[in-house]
């Protein structure tokens, strides 16, 4: 073993330090905004600490193009969530300092997961991420729904963790190593692709990650948790842990089980179709926007799963492009909801949006962009994301699958456009109580970043797509 290269794990170390420091500072700093700002500075430092030459740490942890892209996603997700939360937690009367530390810890967990090459580190990262998120989901302590969400999330999460542990132990028992690369090689050279124990282990992995990314039929927890959790945490959860789940899912499938691709690709295809079907159809019937967005995020998980089906580089690139764009539009949509929430006004049913274009034309336009982007209509980013997934599918001769997916995305227009319809084409029967909006500079900043990126990635996607290709060629 060569000397340990600490520059590879510098960002994670910085974030950990920031997280713990904030726990301490929370005792002395009374105004929680300062904690948020300090955390943001820490995140920024972590950004600059990326060692873009790549490398590994003790053979357990690698920093390559793949993990780099995902870590960028996690850090942007973290920063946007912090910006969203400052005012929201105050409005909800639950402003406490650990909140930001937990966000940071959860993100460190995700970063560990995507870089891990060892099952044990994957597990550690997974638990760090999940445990922090459980607490975050229940962070409005006086709200029954929030507590319920946390409990549900915890129970379901614990289940899926147990399942993945079982899968890991089977894998270790059969191959005698924890390193996913070596596992893949072992299976390949010993011709173990048909081994029933390995098949079971593979299925257990798929089930467990299915829970994490809320793929149907393992999605039952998602709508309730997303609806009950504080909206800022929902925004965080629907992007970060989900992207991390996908990152590890893709990595494990492609490195540990490449010789069993026929088996898992068929299962993933089925999961993806089911996920799109249920996500899109059930979203049609929702009257709460938060719940609608929860189902929509299930549906989007279906599209992302499709990127795994061809098991190709292009598919992986598609997944990353999709998740990167999805982050902005999804957080953007949630940020609009947060903006509409005030102390005595929940503002999360469709009816609450009636006539919004008249009272708050600017917010309505922003929401409109996010809705069209989630539908996948050019010139918004959502289109580019879907396009890259579909392209990888058709390259791999999965025309029919692409066709099914694309028809589902046409169905999704119904419920996204309903939001637009309520905002622009309806007037409330009783005038909306003018409760104002909970405006703040941080929220505006988060929203403008999301808006600008959603549009930019649609009109000028060349930067993102070309640079991802280059990254993969050079690191």
């Amino acid at each position, binding site marked *: 073993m060569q000397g340990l290269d600490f520059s590879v794990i510098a960002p994670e170390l910085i974030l950990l330090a920031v997280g713990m420091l904030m726990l301490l500072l929370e005792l002395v700093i009374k105004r929680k905004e300062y904690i948020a700002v300090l955390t943001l500075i820490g995140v920024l430092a972590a950004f600059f600490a990326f060692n873009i030459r790549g490398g590994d740490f003790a053979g357990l942890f690698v920093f390559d193009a793949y993990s780099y892209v995902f870590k960028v996603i996690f850090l942007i997700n973290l920063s946007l969530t912090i910006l969203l939360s400052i005012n929201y937690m105050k409005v909800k009367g639950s402003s406490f300092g650990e909140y930001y530390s937990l966000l940071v810890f959860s993100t460190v967990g995700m970063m560990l997961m995507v870089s891990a090459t060892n099952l044990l580190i994957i597990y550690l990262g997974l638990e760090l991420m999940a445990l922090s998120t459980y607490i975050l989901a229940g962070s409005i302590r006086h709200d029954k729904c929030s507590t319920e969400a946390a409990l549900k999330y915890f129970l379901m999460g614990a289940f899926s963790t147990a399942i993945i542990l079982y899968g890991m132990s089977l894998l270790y028992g059969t191959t005698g190593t924890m390193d996913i690369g070596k596992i893949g090689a072992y299976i390949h050279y010993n011709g173990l692709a048909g081994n029933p124990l390995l098949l079971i282990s593979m299925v257990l992995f798929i089930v467990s990650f299915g829970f994490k990314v809320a793929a149907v039929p393992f999605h039952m927890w998602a709508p309730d948790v997303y609806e009950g959790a504080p909206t800022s945490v929902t925004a965080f959860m629907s992007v970060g842990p989900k992207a991390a789940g996908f990152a590890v899912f893709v990595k494990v499938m492609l490195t540990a089980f490449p010789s069993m691709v026929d088996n898992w690709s068929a299962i993933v295809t089925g999961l993806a179709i089911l996920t799109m079907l249920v996500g899109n159809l059930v979203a049609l019937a929702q009257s709460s926007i938060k719940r609608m967005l929860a189902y929509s995020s299930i549906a989007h998980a279906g599209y992302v799963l499709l990127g795994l089906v061809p098991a190709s580089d292009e598919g992986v690139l598609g997944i990353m492009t999709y998740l990167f764009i999805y982050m902005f539009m999804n957080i953007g949509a949630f940020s609009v909801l947060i903006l509409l929430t005030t102390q005595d006004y929940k503002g999360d049913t469709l009816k609450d949006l009636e006539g919004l274009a008249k009272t708050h034309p600017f917010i309505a336009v922003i929401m409109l962009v996010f809705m*069209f982007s989630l539908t996948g209509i050019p010139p918004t980013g959502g*289109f580019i994301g879907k396009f890259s997934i579909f392209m990888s599918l058709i390259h791999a001769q999965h025309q029919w699958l692409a066709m099914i997916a*694309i028809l589902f995305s*046409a169905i999704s227009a119904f419920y996204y*456009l309903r939001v637009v319809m309520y905002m*622009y*084409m309806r007037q409330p029967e009783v005038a909306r109580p003018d409760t104002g909006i909970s405006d703040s500079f941080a929220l505006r900043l988060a929203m403008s970043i999301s808006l600008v990126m959603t549009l930019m990635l649609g009109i000028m996607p060349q930067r993102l797509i070309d640079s991802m290709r280059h990254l993969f060629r050079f690191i």
Partner: protein
Amino acid sequence: MTANYPILSLLIFIPILGGGLMALISRRQETLIKWIALVVSSFTLLLSVPLFKNFDKGSAQLQFVERSVWIESWNVQYYVGIDGISVLMVLLSALTAILCVLISWNTIKDKVKEFFIAIVLVEGSMIGVFCSMDIFLFYIFWEAMLIPMYLIVGIWGGNNRIYAAIKFFIYTLVGSVLMLIAIIILYVHGNTFDLTSLLTLHLPYKLQLLLFWLFFAAFAVKVPMFPLHTWLPDAHTEAPTAGSVILAAILIKMGAYGFLRFSLPLFPQAAIALTPTMLTLSVIAIVYGGLICMVQSDFKRLIAYSSVSHMGFVTLGIFSLNINGIEGGLLQMINHGIVTGALFLCIGIVYDRTHTRQIADYGGLASVMPIFSALFIVFTLASIGLPGTNGFIGEFLILLGGFARSPIAAIIASSGIIIGAIYMLWLYQRVFFTAINEKIRGLKDVTPLEIVILLPLLVLVLWIGVYPETFISMLNTSVTALIDRVHGNALNESLTWRQ
């Protein structure tokens, strides 16, 4: 001959950037916003004058070409250019947009800012659709215009607007996404989105058929061809006047344009093989659309259904796959844009005064609004296809071409002209003659602004009717090249097949 400035990009982006500028202005400055919309659209119209003058009629090559790399790793380019097939559509789009701004000047009172932004955004993307030579770029514009169009119908439309808007959106979206699949399949085969390079591909017949049907889904919804036409009457009827005009004059032409630009040259064998099906659908649309018109009690809906019938003529011409048919089809696209656009403008003019679209609420309008009824009869006659108006030239050429391909189709189709005469003249009689209906007594005749709006269309009706050569000569070379390509290709390949 090309201009020394990027004329097509200016045509596309002046409206779009104008829309951006308007977005920055406070919504209280309604007059300023309207003026910007007017300046933007007149500037675009002025720019199309050098386009018209510098267009080289003798060349089938793309003109005013601009290309640069856009997304390198996907091989997507910003590639625009026009030829005889698109030039007139670009001109018509520019003209339509300014008329739409003018007709909405006083009639749109709610959310003025959003409305005019939507209009100029539609204008930019319409022109973009007709200029794009890269299929990816084409698709972006094609889909992008759905957003403002959906809003125009849904926000400023009639009572049933929400239903009409979502129906329009979903129909078009489903068609378009199927086309997207076909675009990606083409990309996988040719590794490019560049139309000129894609034309050099030799696709196997089975694949051509599949791709033809996928493209058909998008184009047939837009045209709209017979079984897929049901969104049209709703959308056209419920849309505000400007929306109906854009829909009728430009948007539904995009489908026919798509057949000419993509389906025929890319999949010639499939196009030839499917000619009987396409001709049948066209003839059904002509007759069925015409018959439905006869039983409409709603003024605007009648004109909307007449579009189904007229567009049936256009597709009949296109799928005749000979010079007369395709030239007639192209010319009829322009004619229909002018005439139906004008009819919708006329309806808008009276609707603003009476707020009813029921034919039964009118009667004797000729003595109340004499100038208006004089203008209206010209457009009615053009719609029927009376010699001396533009409608005659187009339909005549189409029937000529159609007869050469399939006499039966042409014979049945020509009955559509008679049906057209029946419903249009009967409409005119019920609205303008008969006893004066009390509800409309005392209406003001057309204002100078309204005359200004209708006048250019009137001039075009007569110009094309009397001297179509100006326009046909612009189409001729490109259409000949297209037909050579369709038949030449098919011929070559059937020969190699036999070997």
